[in-house]
């Protein structure tokens, strides 16, 4: 697996993960070679990004954090 970098006010892209275990202990299987991990904690598809950070940014909110709920 390799870190493909965080996007300003957006998700963190990670390449080559098989699955992500979230804070609840649930295992989420990665369906594609590069995945976007939610950093705003507002995605309805956590741990995956669904673009919701854009809505937050448009409302003047920027709650992005790597200490969010997406796990390692």
């Amino acid at each position, binding site marked *: 697996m390799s870190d493909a*970098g965080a996007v300003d006010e*957006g998700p963190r892209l990670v390449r080559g993960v098989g699955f992500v275990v979230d804070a609840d202990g649930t295992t989420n299987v990665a369906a594609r070679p*590069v995945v976007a991990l939610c950093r705003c904690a507002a995605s309805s598809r956590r741990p995956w*990004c*669904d673009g*919701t950070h854009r809505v937050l940014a448009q409302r003047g909110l920027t709650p992005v954090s790597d200490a969010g709920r997406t796990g390692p």
Partner: protein
Amino acid sequence: MRAPTPRGPLGETVHDYLTRPGLRALGLPDHWPVSTDEDRALALWTLYELSYRGFDDVDDALEWDPALLALRGRLEQDLERRLRRAWTAWDGPRDLPGIVDHDLSGGEGTSSFVRRRATADDVRAILVQKSVYHLKESDPHGFVLPRLEPGPKAALAELQYDELGNGDPGRLHAHLFAQALEAAGLDPTYGAYVDQATEATLTLNNAMSLFCLHRRLRHAAMGHLAAFEATSSLPSADMVRGLRRLGFDEAVVRYYDEHVEADAVHEHLAARDICGRMTGGDPALEDEVGFGAFTCVDLEARSAAELVPAEAAA
């Protein structure tokens, strides 16, 4: 697919040339009859299709016929001039993120229409128009790949690998869309609805082929792709809600559901790793990316305006 039914004098001439070898010796006329935008758009779409899948009733060798290429060149010049005129006249944001944000905060598009108030027949009418591109989803961008430097090339290949199913034909996005059409009671055959495609739909498809088939327009091609991907995740989630509201089959929902997460990845690959690496901050190249991005959202909005009826006054 057979060559589409012409919609005017230019289309008639092209159709005859393509399908009646006996008439080919006469060549194509030097001067074109006055034709409508729709006639020209379908003629250009037909000429472009020779480079994708071709037609059952047309000789494959005509893809490189000099007379047809000369006509295509003239139609392309006309299209590019119109697209650049619109970009010059645009007084909104001129950078990729600005264009995307402006579009996402704009009025009702087809997806919010589907989420809120479309009928099942409205949805089918939308799928019919969308089918012209979605059944060849990502195909135009394949033409751009050999023209890129290693940085953006690797990123486009990564994006396309996902679009093309990650090695599984069953997950190819164009295939998922065909399954969606069938599950919605529509014809999943490639090209089935070209005769019903509006001028806006044809022009939107022609713009992609124009950008992707000309090496000099590769920055506009990738700007278009980046805007397309960045304006897809949230609207796809709206489509999922609307399709479920209307009780559509899960195969229809699945196509849009796949795009919520896929395009949340693709938009960053396209904006940062493809466009960012291609321009390296050069303002002239960034303007070309902006031109492509603007063309994408502008033509999509024009198409949506035809598909979304005005809300009835209360």
